[in-house]
């Protein structure tokens, strides 16, 4: 079915209706939302959105999987990823070899994910968070070691995770993300236990 054209006109109103109905309608809608605010605000540092797995956040390298094929660096549109020559001790040949590994510069990275998608061995992956800020530009040029670590997740420390789901009446509605919270609680309990035992042991 191809598209059709539908001829339309600006809705017309008689002057009296324009003044009264228009104003009253606008005020009524305003008042409705004033008394029944449909808030969708995320209280950011106290809550954070638990992003889906597919979110293209910061990138982490799994060094073991990397085969030094340079695809990621070649496809990177911002030249944010570059190959760094590293001397690696080869167990089999028992000698040092020069191997290339990618490093990333977040000053340039545009989080397009092309490098992750193109890597033939899935040596790169995204972590689903994207809210880190820096005071210094040099901190954003990662060394090979840093590139293998997941960046510190500050929001996790400060807030509880929430999820937004769609609702017909209210659009986006947020709820605490229970699974994540439970997981965290378990972890904390474990930690406490471990600490407690440690204390006991110490005493």
């Amino acid at each position: 079915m191809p598209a059709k054209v539908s001829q339309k006109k600006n809705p017309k109103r008689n002057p009296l209706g324009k003044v009264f109905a228009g104003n009253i309608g606008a005020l009524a809608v305003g008042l409705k939302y004033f008394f029944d605010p449909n808030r969708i605000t995320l209280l950011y540092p106290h809550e954070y959105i638990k992003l889906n797995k597919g979110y293209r956040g910061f990138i982490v390298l799994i060094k073991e999987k990397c085969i030094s094929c340079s695809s990621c660096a070649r496809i990177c549109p911002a030249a944010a990823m570059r190959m760094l020559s590293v001397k690696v001790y080869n167990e089999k040949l028992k000698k040092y070899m020069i191997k290339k590994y990618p490093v990333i510069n977040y000053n340039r990275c545009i989080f397009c994910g092309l490098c992750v998608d193109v890597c033939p061995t899935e040596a790169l992956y995204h972590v689903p968070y994207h809210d880190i800020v820096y005071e210094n530009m040099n901190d954003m040029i990662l060394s090979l070691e840093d590139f293998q670590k997941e960046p510190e997740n500050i929001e996790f420390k400060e807030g509880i995770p929430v999820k937004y789901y769609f609702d017909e009446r209210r659009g986006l509605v947020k709820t605490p993300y229970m699974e994540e919270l439970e997981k965290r609680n378990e972890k904390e309990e474990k930690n406490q236990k471990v600490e407690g035992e440690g204390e006991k042991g110490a005493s």
Partner: protein
Amino acid sequence: MISLQDMIKEALGNNIIKIEDNKGYIDVVVPLEKLKESAIKVKQLGFDHVKSVTAVDYIQKKQFMVTYHISSYLNEELSRHVLGLSTFIDRDNPHIPSLATIWTSAEFQEREVYEFFGIIFDGHPDLRLLLLTPVVAALKPLRKDFVVKEDSINIEVDYAAYNATKWW
């Protein structure tokens, strides 16, 4: 029902140097002197606006190609097609008659081509710089002899000597 190509052939007569059906549009090449005349004829056919004014720098041939991609809004039959009206001009002395007097919609685009390639549109009502500052426009950035350098993908240093500040 005659095809568009025939229609244009008929209208422009022997002004045409070359006409070909490119991917997505019909390309008509006319000589520089006949550009304005053909433009008026094409406009009478019902092509009422310019979609894009493009120049391409063929640095080996020492030529610029200037293309006007034109189409129609008011004529629904023509609006399915895009016509490319091209002409070749000399690279050393880039002058071309302006079509902004025929299609108002070409006005800003010609200004843009002017600042990026240094092609001068004779008879343009208001030929000024549009996007660039004078300093940058002096480089004529879209010509092929102005090259921007891409960064290489390798850092050719040992890891021990890797220095973050050296990146830029």
